[in-house]
């Protein structure tokens, strides 16, 4: 079981996933897909927390990660409710068409 993995690789993985999340956030047009990209970003951050928690040999990182998950859950619930409402009113899921706040 020897041959560990350098910790920095975990961080790199986290960075890659975060970047993918940002890309999805910017490039996708479907609201739900944008939301899921946000969730991906949150997951990447969670990985970073756990990694550093391992590195510092403290469990606080796990706690942070736990709270991130809780907040993600709440946010998902409310966000999806909003998406439902928007869909009911605008009949569309494309974020480009929800632009009535234009100057």
């Amino acid at each position, binding site marked *: *079981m*020897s*041959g*560990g*993995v*350098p*910790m*920095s*690789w975990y*961080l*790199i*993985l986290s*960075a*890659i*996933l975060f*970047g*993918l999340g940002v*890309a*999805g956030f910017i*490039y*996708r*047009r*479907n609201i*739900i*897909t944008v939301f*899921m*990209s946000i*969730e*991906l970003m949150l*997951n990447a951050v*969670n*990985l970073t927390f*756990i*990694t550093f928690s*391992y*590195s510092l*040999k403290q469990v*606080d990182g*796990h*706690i942070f*990660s*736990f*709270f991130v*998950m809780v907040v*993600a*859950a*709440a*946010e*998902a*619930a*409310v966000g*999806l*409710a*909003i*998406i*439902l*409402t928007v869909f*009911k009113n605008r009949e569309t*899921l*494309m974020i480009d068409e929800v632009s009535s706040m234009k100057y």
Partner: protein
Amino acid sequence: MTALIFFIFAGIAVFCGISLVAQTHPIASALSLIGVMGSLAILYLQLGGEFIAAAQVIVYAGAIMVLFVFVIMLLNAGAEGTSLNVSQFAKYAGIVLLAAFLGLISFIIQATLPKTESVVFGAWDGGTAADVGRKLFTSYLLPFEVTSVLILIALVGAVVLARKEI
């Protein structure tokens, strides 16, 4: 062994991530996200986070993503149409830029982190439920209570927003 598992599941995570961003149908994206979460759970296990791994699967993949799938099916979201006039140049330039950005980050991390220690499965066992619970109910009691209020608010909000009259 640790390295092998790492590479397999890291690869799955990245692959699912790309597929999340690249797929047109939301359901495919949702399923990809579930894949990412699963692989991450394995990685958490490797890092000694037993409780978090379980929570990830149960809460994140099991509840939140199910909610997502429900909403997608409820809204009957179809595949995205053609992209509106995003120039080909921007599309490919964006990918290249993204790759460059990630490469830069990786390089920085590699260069600046000193003698990183290796992650070996089982080297640290401080992430058990008991440890998390102990910390949660002593040092982080206040945030814990506050988040419960937060969830209450989210609950009320979701119910109100999703009603018929709004």
